[in-house]
């Protein structure tokens, strides 16, 4: 398999508690993988490790074939991230925020402008470019963050619960867009969520619970005849019992 993202035996502890208990999974290049887990499952810890905000107790991560902990800068240059908390500067305009992010990825001048225009256009945000972030609603805020994550044309896009607090229509628009970029641009997407309706039957699904992977496969193969919510509840409750 051509690997977009590979996680091997990733272990991370806070004191005596294992937040991630040696998990492993692989996402093929250009695939959409939903990382489903209840609050406290370890999703955000995994994202912090995948973005090298901190290093794991043990284990490895490969981003598009590059070892994240051996060649962090090369690996990070291949990642686009949308964090759970908004990370835009509210006092600056959408364009100023995107210029800042582009520069952090080495883009400046015309190259940056072209990349920003393209990213905003794809998210239908070009008419908001000169508005301050403070003036945006939740949906536009998230679209701006996704546009920002795509400016440098990453190989892997990581989204940590990007639809939290959004209305149903905006959630659907953002979920559809994330699916579209896998097929149209060949970007590997890891989408963390606790909302089962964001996962499509053909998506790869990794179910994370209490730091362990309960299931890893194609969503429809995991659910069988059941609905995903019923299957998810069954799996997570059986672990508690």
């Amino acid at each position, binding site marked *: 398999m051509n690997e977009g993202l590979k996680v091997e035996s990733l272990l*991370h502890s*806070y004191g005596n508690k294992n*937040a991630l208990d040696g998990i492993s999974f692989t996402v093929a290049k250009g695939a959409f993988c939903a990382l489903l887990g209840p609050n*406290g499952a370890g999703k*955000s*810890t995994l*994202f*912090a490790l995948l*973005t*090298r*905000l*901190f*290093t794991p107790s043990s284990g490895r991560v490969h981003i598009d074939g590059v070892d994240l902990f051996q060649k*962090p*800068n*090369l*690996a*990070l*240059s291949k*990642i686009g*991230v949308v*964090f*759970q*908390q*908004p*990370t*835009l*500067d509210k*006092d*600056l305009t959408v364009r*100023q925020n995107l*210029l*800042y*992010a582009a*520069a*952090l*990825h*080495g*883009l*400046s001048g015309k190259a940056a402008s072209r990349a920003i225009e393209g990213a905003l256009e794809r998210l239908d945000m070009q008419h908001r470019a000169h508005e301050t972030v403070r003036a945006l609603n939740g949906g536009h805020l998230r679209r701006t963050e996704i546009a920002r994550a795509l400016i440098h044309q990453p190989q892997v896009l990581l989204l940590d619960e990007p639809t939290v607090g959004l209305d149903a229509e905006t959630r659907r628009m953002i979920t559809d867009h994330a699916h579209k970029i896998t097929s149209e641009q060949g970007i590997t997407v890891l989408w963390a969520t606790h909302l089962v309706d964001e996962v499509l039957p053909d998506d790869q699904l990794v179910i994370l619970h209490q730091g362990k992977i309960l299931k890893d496969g194609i969503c429809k193969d995991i659910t069988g005849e059941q609905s995903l919510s019923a299957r998810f509840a069954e799996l997570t409750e059986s672990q508690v019992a």
Partner: protein
Amino acid sequence: MKHALIGTRAIIKREALRFVSQRGRFIASLVRPLVWLIVFAAGFRAALGLSIAPPYETYITYEVYIVPGLCGMVQLFNGMQSSLSLVYDREMGSMRLLLTSPIPRWWLLFSKLLAGTFVSIVQVYCFLAIAALVGITFPIHGYLLALPILLLNGLMLGGLGLFLSATIKQLENFAGVMNFVIFPMFFLSTALYPLWKMAEASVLLKNICAWNPFSHAVELLRFALYGQFNGTALIVVVCALLVFLWASVWGYNPARTGLARKAT
């Protein structure tokens, strides 16, 4: 290397844009030393007699004496303000954008430090301009020689702030930093009183002042403003800068789980 420099330019520009948009911060940064200069210095002028000591070649008024110290105060508070904004950025999440960019972390931190230092230099020159308006002036070449010293002092004090921001776990703890770092550092220095004056009160206090890197930052600037050079002060400030930089890089090392807890 080009990539890293583009990043540095963007970090400085962002800091400048934020500074311009936060007018209150700019006004506060000027009002604070001006209150000291106009109110405090006026009251103490009569109480404190100052003898001739380098770099001064004649008797000076107390207002003239404390101007370099107040410049240091501007940079000290700016360093801590940057530290506060870093803790805020971390709590609000925007620090993550910076730390997950493909630029070496030590360079990112240095760029952040440089950006804060540029802002503090603008503040200091505005303060010096107002001081000149009330009649406290320095030789023209003194203003020019002060520039590299302000850069060095700003980096050193910003480095301290950066290190503190890595160790402060919550925004609420910032009040503790004010009480235990800024005030002792400022009052136990040569910003307000010369060392010999401090020795009259207590030899221990004088020794603490003499060891305080902020004293040396102030003295380095005081000498530079009169076109003179203070080698000892330069060595102490450079050493302190290296220590604070090293501590900051250590503090922001991803292997430390202090940052990790924020992600859960």
